[in-house]
């Protein structure tokens, strides 16, 4: 097996192996576990770095295993998958550090970290899959590996959330499977190819293809939390903060969004999808999701729930960008995949810090938090402002390209949606900032933990600071080489230029 074909497998193994080993570690072996986790995450980052360099220079990375007759399990690194892989790898490292600090002293840590690593493995698999079957495989694996993380708290509420999560995702998975299979019986292949592989089919199959598209979108839309399939996401907020962070920023919702990107670009092909007339309804659904998610977020008092609804809204940006048929909007959507990830994970880290250090879960209790946790709230502020789309932060870049792309594609209504969403974002984020910074703190916090001179433990503080910094940097240096924006530009060029 050559290096090129082994590399995708190695990338998978770098989290699968630690995950497998961690399951068998006893609860007390904190050091071994930490070292394993961090070593895996670092190794993965290095390998991904190598792969980025290679893909940029046209190296093919592909691993194949026979899975079903005529269908292989294909792991392939192309520009699009690397976008997601890199995001996952970077944020996994951050989240691992955070989780180590967050779960200090709580029970069942081996189980947690084991499933955590498996979850990342599944995410990487989703990103690297080279055909729809492989995608389906890892997509379902992701469902299975995140379930233990959601119910990790072992409370009745958590198990209820787990059940709801499973109800949605398993049903979605089934739909996805049916769609995939149907597609396979029509086309005989499932391999992701630039410009799609369906445009050669007879025109009599068009109505079938539309139906399959609907099936696939329903299957993927569950994880991407499109309206009306988003119900599991706010429920899943009972999970520990690192899990919420990972779920919302990287793994689950992004897997769904990524799948939609794959289906639209590499299965149907954007031009063919536009010919079929399926993109406009998708865009409308995404737009409705954006507005609805923001509106719901406005009425939440629980911080994590508000963030969850914000995720519902924000992930739809990605889909909107894909569904507006045009290169610029595509850039906006794809780059939002990364930008939203970085910003949202920061927000969740901070929410976790606030809950962990001060015992605050409700926004109405957050008065004056900024004075007690200035660094955390600074990170939160940056990410929140980024979410609103203020320049020069990351969110601005995405919104900018989305708006530009929409205008360029002649779909002015999207700009209005974006404007409304920005206003709503401001409406639900700014009051938090206002309360945290400018309102007087209460006499005492609900459940304060002391960390000496620092405001909180450093593993809890460092990750959000780093990701907040990243939010600024990828916004400010958006057109530097190897920035997400440049990389997405690279991807879009290959999709739109035959």
């Amino acid at each position: 097996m050559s290096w090129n074909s082994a590399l995708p497998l190695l990338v998978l193994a770098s989290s699968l192996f630690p995950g497998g080993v961690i399951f068998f570690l006893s609860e007390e072996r904190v050091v071994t576990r930490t070292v394993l986790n961090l070593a895996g995450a670092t190794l993965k980052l290095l390998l991904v770095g190598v792969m980025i360099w290679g893909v940029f220079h046209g190296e093919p990375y592909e691993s194949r295993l026979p899975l079903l007759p005529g269908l292989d399990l294909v792991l392939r690194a192309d520009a699009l998958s690397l976008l997601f892989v890199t995001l996952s790898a970077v944020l996994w490292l951050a989240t691992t550090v955070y989780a180590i600090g967050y779960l200090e002293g709580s029970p069942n840590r081996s189980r947690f970290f084991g499933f955590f690593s498996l979850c990342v493995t599944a995410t990487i698999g989703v990103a690297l899959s080279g055909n729809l079957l492989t995608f389906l495989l890892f997509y379902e694996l992701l469902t299975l590996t995140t379930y233990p993380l959601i119910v990790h708290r072992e409370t009745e509420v958590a198990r209820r959330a787990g059940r709801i999560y499973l109800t949605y995702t398993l049903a979605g998975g089934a739909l996805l499977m049916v769609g995939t299979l149907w597609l396979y019986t029509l086309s005989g292949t499932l391999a992701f190819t630039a410009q799609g592989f369906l445009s050669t089919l007879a025109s009599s199959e068009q109505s079938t293809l539309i139906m399959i598209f609907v099936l696939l979108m329903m299957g993927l839309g569950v994880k991407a939390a499109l309206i009306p399939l988003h119900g599991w996401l706010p429920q899943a907020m009972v999970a520990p903060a690192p899990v919420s962070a990972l779920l919302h920023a990287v793994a689950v919702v992004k897997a769904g969004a990524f799948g939609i990107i794959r289906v639209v670009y590499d299965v149907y092909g954007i031009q063919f999808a536009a010919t079929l007339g399926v993109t406009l309804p998708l865009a409308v659904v995404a737009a409705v999701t954006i507005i609805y998610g923001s509106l719901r977020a406005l009425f939440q008092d629980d911080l994590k729930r508000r963030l969850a609804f914000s995720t519902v809204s924000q992930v739809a940006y990605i889909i909107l960008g894909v569904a507006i048929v045009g290169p610029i909007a595509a850039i906006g959507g794809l780059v939002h995949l990364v930008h939203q990830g970085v910003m949202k994970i920061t927000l969740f880290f901070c929410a976790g810090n606030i809950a962990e250090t001060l015992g605050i879960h409700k926004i109405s209790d957050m008065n004056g938090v900024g004075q007690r946790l200035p660094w955390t709230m600074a990170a939160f502020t940056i990410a929140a402002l980024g979410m609103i789309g203020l320049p020069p932060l990351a969110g601005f870049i995405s919104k900018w390209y989305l708006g530009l792309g929409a205008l360029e594609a002649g779909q002015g209504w999207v700009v209005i949606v974006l404007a409304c969403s920005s206003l709503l974002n401001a409406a639900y984020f700014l009051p938090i900032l206002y309360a945290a910074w400018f309102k007087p703190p209460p006499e005492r916090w609900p459940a304060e933990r002391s960390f000496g001179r620092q405001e909180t433990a450093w593993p809890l503080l460092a990750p959000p600071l780093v990701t907040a910094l990243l939010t600024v940097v990828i916004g400010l240096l958006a057109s530097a080489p190897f920035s997400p924006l440049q990389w997405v530009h690279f991807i879009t060029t290959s999709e739109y230029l035959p």
Partner: protein
Amino acid sequence: MSVLIFSIHWQVMVVLLPLAGAIACFLWPRRGVMLALVCALGTTLSVAGLSWLVVVEGAQRYTVGGWGAPLGIDLYVDGLSLLMLIVTSVVGVAISVYANGYFERSRARAFWPLWLFLWGALNALFLSADIFNLYITLELLGLAAVTLVALAKGAQPLSSAMRYLLVTLLGSLLFLLGVALLYHSSGSVDIAILAERLSASPVVWIALGLMVVGLLLKTALFPLHFWLPQAHASAPAPVSALLSALVVKASFYILIRLWLEIFPPNNFVLGQLLGLLGAAALLWGNLQALRQTRLKMLIAYSTVAQLGYLFLAFPLANIIGWTGALYMLLSHAIAKAAMFMAAGNILRFGGHDSIADLDRIVQRLPLTVTTFALAGVSIMGLPPSGGFVAKWLLLEAAIRSAQWWWGVVLVLGGLLSAVWIFKVVGYAFTPSPVPHEVRAVPASMEWSALALALTAIALGLFSSWPLALMMVGLPFGEGGGS
């Protein structure tokens, strides 16, 4: 080496070794464990040898007694029967290891010879190409299975065993009546010759109808499943495992054999009927499973449900459908055995298997819970697992033959089974409030179950080999019923 492999009559070894082992265990009960394990190993090796032979040289017909059909009895191995033999070996070895830890001495003395008899009967059944011989193997199988069920203590196992015995006798008699009619209308009991000589006439249909219903009784297809849940649930854990994994599959194997070989073609409506019953089994079994309060009962009902999947191949009736059903059989056998073993571990550990109280024990048996979950993945048909491959193939067959309604049933069944699996698995994530008395579970029991569960998962990743094996000798030849 290869000379040796081709000169040994593996077919005979496959049947005789377990029988000889049973006799040996009967003669020297104190050495039972050792003898049984050696025998299990030997049988597995023979099956391996046979597979090699078949893979290299294609389907094999073996004339016992040198007379050949119609006078004598033939043994026939093709991909279909070989696959069944392999499943039996895989599950058999695991069950042997598991049972070693499970039974105390007095019951082990009874268990080993019975189990080896059952194994021998299974192997003989899968090899046989003669319907009267099939009747005898069915009886051998049935009696061994009934006795094994009755090995458990208490009133419930005994009455379930009694019911099971009556059902299996009835089934055999119906089958035998069919055999009699077929013999008298064609003058042979060899399947291949029957296939040549029979044409669709009322006699043949009456005979086939009797045989089908006899086999359905033994396979416990809805609505004839009434005996299964209690028998499987009340048997000792290794016995439950092998009943669910293998015994019900044996009669299904005969059914599939008959359907493929001697049923008149164009029996589309009958296929739809069987498919309908299968679909009903799938839904009914899963719904009943949801309702259960005892773990083993739940798993037993899930067997009822999963058997429904197998029957969905009949209406689809194309190669993909058959392959899918067989793959389902394969993965269900392995996963369900693992699941019953896990349930056995839980039962032994906590002394009960009431689902609502599982939270007290599940956390201390992480391996067992893992086993249950992995087996559950396969049973739900989530990737990567054998169940997924099977469901994929069945669904593909449904779509390709434009019978989408079976696809709907398939998907629905998978979702329903997910509900009860996660109902159980959910208890793994409950803090255990009350420490209580526990009985240690030997490592061999936990690991053998886990090994099976992992095999079920691996079936999803390495499906090409079993799929290729099934095709040896083209058992589904010209596309089954189409």
